[in-house]
């Protein structure tokens, strides 16, 4: 009886290919929701001029501090500017700072970490010692100190956030490279005469890239938060260009009169960060089938 069930079960069993990465990602619930949230934010930022008839910078004193209405969904700020419009345009700066700074950190930290993990020796110990020192500072404090002396502005914020994320990125890259460094196929590639650059690029990188992709996505969430905190403190991109952090700071100063100028941009930050966090979790699960979702 038992053997016949087993036999029929085996005969029906057809080996099935594991679905590809894109399918796994599209099927993952948190990746879906995260991707959707980010799509909304991205479209809102890009299509801002089509989505709203108002100007994000032009002031309109007669309409200052109006409550939300059908024409002004999130009300107006102290200078009469439409809060919803400014939130949409603010997304451009936040997303640009996030993507640029994390890419820069990935490029810098990734190559330093990979080199350090691949060659080891004095290079490795120097890199590790330096990153120990950088990691001894709370990240945001380091960014604040850097900006205080570099001055605010778009590119300096990108640079400051990239610098604080270089050390953690280098650590992840180093660990990933070390984990495949002594695999047989790496030794084999070296044995048939491939040079260091070729081994790193063709054999190590493709097998060590997964943790870096996950780290970058989750870092994007942190970078958006860092950018918001820095511009909240007045160290970010300077007014009148709208940024979410600076809008919250302005909203805070008028909150005895109207709470909407502070609420709108905070919601936008939360949605964006949530999107990157969910997407990052989804990518992690999709790349690593052994990892059960938490």
């Amino acid at each position, binding site marked *: 009886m038992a053997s016949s069930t087993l036999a029929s079960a085996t005969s029906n069993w057809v080996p099935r290919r594991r679905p590809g990465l894109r399918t796994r990602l599209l099927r993952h619930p948190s990746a879906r929701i995260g991707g959707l949230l980010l799509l909304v934010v991205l479209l809102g930022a890009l299509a801002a001029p089509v989505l709203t008839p108002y100007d994000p910078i032009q002031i309109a004193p007669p309409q200052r501090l109006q409550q939300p209405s059908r024409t002004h969904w999130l009300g107006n700020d102290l200078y009469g500017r439409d809060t919803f419009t400014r939130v949409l345009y603010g997304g451009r700066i936040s997303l640009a700072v996030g993507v640029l700074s994390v890419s820069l950190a990935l490029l810098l930290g990734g190559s330093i970490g990979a080199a350090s993990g691949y060659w080891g020796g004095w290079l490795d110990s120097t890199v590790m010692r330096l990153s120990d020192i950088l990691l001894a500072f*709370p990240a945001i404090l*380091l960014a604040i100190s850097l900006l205080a002396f570099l001055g605010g502005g778009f590119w300096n914020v990108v640079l400051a956030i990239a610098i604080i994320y270089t050390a953690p990125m280098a650590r992840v890259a180093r660990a990933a490279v070390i984990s495949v460094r002594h695999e047989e196929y790496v030794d084999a590639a070296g044995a048939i005469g491939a040079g260091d650059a070729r081994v790193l690029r063709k054999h190590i990188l493709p097998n060590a890239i997964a943790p870096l992709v996950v780290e970058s996505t989750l870092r994007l969430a942190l970078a958006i938060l860092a950018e918001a905190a820095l511009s909240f403190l007045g160290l970010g991109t300077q007014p009148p260009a709208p940024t979410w952090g600076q809008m919250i700071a302005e909203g805070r100063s008028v909150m005895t009169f109207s709470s909407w100028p502070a609420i709108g941009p905070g919601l936008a930050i939360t949605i964006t960060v949530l999107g990157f966090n969910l997407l990052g979790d989804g990518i992690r699960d999709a790349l690593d089938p052994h990892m059960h979702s938490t």
Partner: protein
Amino acid sequence: MLGVVTAVFLLIRLVPGDVVSQMIGLEGSLPRGRVEELKELFGLNRPLHVQYAEYVSKIARGNLGKSLRTDRSVGPELARRFPVTLQLAVMGLLVAVAIGIPIGILAALRHGRLADYVATAFVLLGLSVPSFWLGVLLILLFALRLGWLPPTGYISPAESLAGNVQHMLLPALSLGLVLAAASTRIVRSSLLEVLGRHYIRTARAKGLWESAVVLRHALRNALIPVVTVIGLQFGTLLGGTVIIEQIFALPGIGRYALEGINLRDYPVVQGAVLAIALSFTLVNLFVDMCYGFLDPRIRYE
């Protein structure tokens, strides 16, 4: 430690601009001779390595220098402000532990049920809400709308203990919520893993109360990753005090650092950043020592 000291020194000096040109920028132009005189006074015209040697030897003797603007010593000022920041950080940590650990335990015990989903939603939101925005929302709700708590300001515990706690409650909540979410996440996943182990089945088979199984057998073994994460996140918490102190107008070290930064007051920034970074290093050391207590198998030579 010396690395941190050196990094702080270089960080401040390698970027363009100095206190004298900044003061001139603020107060209009000065005759050329006067600029040199001021630089001489602050020791800014000497070579970098001389400034560095002097700086390190002073720190080794516990002398953090004087503010270039107010001429007050940095050391005593830091000592006066340190309790505020420490209280904020500790209360933030308490908020995190008091909220994060129970919710994490609940989520693990009710795995896959409603309470678990609510906890997961709390984690996701907690990790995505900026703490300074949360601070603003809490002020809006509890101070302006309901009028239960004061919006900003500080009262020392010596003056009024109740007043002190009232003023620190909202800042501690806004600071601690992110860490609460992070601890919920790690308590949940770590406890779930431990609950599947054989010794838990054995403990249940012995007929122990479920509470004894969870608290004594499971939780204790699940705590090591929790302590690691809380320890690592404590740095974020310390960094967060800079922003939270600014929002709630608390006279702590973070606010001192920001004031120093805005005025390019090197000794102030140096002292404040150094104080925060060194506290962070000490916390990490303390966390390492906690492992030995939680897991007797870990011993330090």
